[in-house]
């Protein structure tokens, strides 16, 4: 199946959605009649800020990969190559929007204000969740693929219900109605929960954006095994709009996300965006991509690197060397901070974990806790009896 060229499938050529693209691989800015309007207020300073974010997260990713290799982290899943898709989407979101990430949304987390150092406590095995999901409207990572998708749809149903039932809205939410954004990958799109989620979202006109990063691979399995058609085309089957976008194009992703969220906020129901990108690194630090993909393929995508593309654009706009040097130095500094933070982390106490199994008192947990404390105390007594 993986060997078949995608065009062999009957009907696959017909009605293909166009792929929205604005910033060319050469860094030259094109235009798009449908989406230019969503970029009107984007300034050069904004683009420089995006570049700084993308570079910082790239540096973070590299530093964390090194930390894992040195045995300081159990595992790491780099986002290298997907920074434009994530930062571009984040730029179109409002603080009151709720994000449900998958597990590779480090750049999106950074843009939402999550402390990436806290995130690493998860990968160090020191924390189950890492950050406070309520502080940034950025839910925890979900490692059971696609399980977060129906949860996001339910959350969006709740956002809509708040208004319909006249229930108190969070004062921070301001006048613009909130939306929910849920991220998942090309592989996860196959899960039944992804499908059910789209049905529920459509039925309830849920204000939810399905944001798919198609990075061409689900570990070793190519996209052609997951779908005959671009994933964005599935949206039509559920009765809502799907958009294909060059996921390595910061401007295009920002524009289509702004368009989609505006439509969602108007109460017109869900939208699906498929950002076509590429995982430039390994699936995780436990993976060996040489087993399933070619050097030529990797090189081809390296030439489309979103960070390089944005740099080309900024240089064409006559942004000076000093900016790039300062951005690079700041990213290096961030990497050092991350390293220090990981090395300084203190492991939790096992006994704390009895506290959060349930929200309310639970006799079974209390029984286990009492037993554990008694067992531990036994060692103290033994140590007193035998001071060696």
């Amino acid at each position, binding site marked *: 199946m993986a060997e078949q060229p995608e065009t062999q499938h009957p009907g696959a050529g017909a009605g293909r959605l166009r792929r929205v693209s604005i910033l060319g691989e050469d860094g030259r800015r094109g235009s798009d009649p449908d989406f230019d309007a969503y970029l009107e207020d984007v300034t050069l300073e904004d683009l420089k800020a995006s570049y700084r974010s993308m570079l910082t997260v790239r540096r973070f990713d590299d530093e964390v990969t090194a930390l894992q290799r040195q045995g300081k982290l159990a595992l790491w899943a780099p986002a290298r190559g997907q920074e434009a898709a994530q930062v571009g989407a984040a730029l179109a979101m409002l603080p009151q929007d709720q994000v449900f990430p998958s597990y590779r949304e480090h750049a999106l987390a950074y843009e939402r204000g999550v402390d990436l150092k806290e995130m690493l406590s998860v990968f160090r095995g020191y*924390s*189950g*969740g890492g950050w*406070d*999901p*309520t502080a940034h409207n950025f*839910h*925890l990572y*979900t490692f*059971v693929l696609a*399980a977060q*998708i*129906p*949860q*996001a*749809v*339910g*959350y*969006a*149903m*709740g*956002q809509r*219900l*708040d208004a*319909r*039932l006249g*229930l108190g809205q969070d004062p921070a939410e301001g006048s613009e109605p909130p939306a929910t954004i849920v991220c998942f990958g090309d592989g996860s799109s196959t899960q*039944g*929960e992804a499908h*059910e*989620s789209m*049905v*529920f979202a459509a*039925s309830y006109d849920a204000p939810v954006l399905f944001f798919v990063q198609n990075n061409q691979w689900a570990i070793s399995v190519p996209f052609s095994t997951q779908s005959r058609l671009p994933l964005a085309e599935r949206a039509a089957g559920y009765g809502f709009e799907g958009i294909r976008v060059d996921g390595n194009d910061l401007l295009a992703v920002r524009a289509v996300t702004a368009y989609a969220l505006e439509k969602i906020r108007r109460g017109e129901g869900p939208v699906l965006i498929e950002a076509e990108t590429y995982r430039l690194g390994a699936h995780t630090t436990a993976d060996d991509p040489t087993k399933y993909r070619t050097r030529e393929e990797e090189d081809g995508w390296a030439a489309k690197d979103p960070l390089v593309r944005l740099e080309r654009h900024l240089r064409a706009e006559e942004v000076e060397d000093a900016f790039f040097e300062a951005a690079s130095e700041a990213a290096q500094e961030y990497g050092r901070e991350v390293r220090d933070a990981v090395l300084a982390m203190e492991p939790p106490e096992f006994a704390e*974990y009895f*506290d*959060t*199994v*349930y*929200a*309310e008192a*639970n*006799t*079974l*947990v209390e029984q286990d806790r009492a037993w554990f404390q008694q067992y531990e105390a036994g060692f103290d007594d033994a140590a007193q009896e035998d001071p060696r």
Partner: protein
Amino acid sequence: MSTHEIENLPIAKALNAAMDDALAADPTVLMMGEDIGTLGGVFRVTQGLKETYGADRVMDTPLGEAGIVGTAIGLAMRGYRPVCEIQFDGFVYPSFNQITSQLAKIHFRSDGRISLPVVIRIPYGGNIGSIEHHSESPEALFAHTAGLRVMTPSNAQDAYSMLREAIASSDPVIFLEPKRRYWLKGEVDRSASTTDTQRAQVVREGQDLTLAAYGALVPVALAAAEAAQEDGRSVEVVDLRSISPLDVATVEASVSRTGRLVVTHEAPTFGGMGGELAAEIGTRCFYRLEAPVIRVGGYHMPYPVAAVEEDYLPNIDRLLEAIDRSLSH
């Protein structure tokens, strides 16, 4: 909806009253499930609720159990208290991932920052002469999952009080409804303050042997105790009510007096709640036991066809045989 009188209600109506009162008391309470709105549920347990509270709060959802539970989790994160109905026990498995890997764990993995007050109502158990997948008892699967509470009422008052408590709980609750008893009537006091449903209840006192049961088998256990009485045997019956956490202390207190325990459930004996209770009582009452704990459960087979389900299910005769066996030690 007068709340200060004693009503004589079947379990199904007591459950309906509990949902009605919860919907009236708290605007964040929602009902969701397949056919629960316009139809009132295939067992009519939610009858009339959509008419009273509207389609926004009593939702006829699309047909997908993972979608129902998954969206309920998201609604709970947004501040709602969803009560999901799974149409039949055998159809809960499509949502098993959402229940066990998500609903049960999110409070824990968020370091207690997210509570999920979600109730999942499941009509369960057999002896209704139905086709396959409509007669199962999956309680042990959920009891084995930390983070979930599992409870099952056996009478109308408990059906009302326990469902009110389940909806009020900040923790997710698997609420198992003994469907063959839906039309069993009993007195219900809607003003009765919620009982402590983490506790088991002695529903018949006796001296010679303790018989522990829950859900649909409580009336069977009571009938067996009555029959044993005719042979001069005094059997104490304990209704466990809460499957997780399991109130071992109440059973322990009973067995400390009687010295004997028979425990029964419809679910297969192997890996079931009876084994858990036997292990706990074997440890706590080791010197007070006069006989080994005896389990009377379903056999190790998928739930069989209706024509032979009487042979599969624990009944009065099987309980009397177990009581004999215990007392012969």
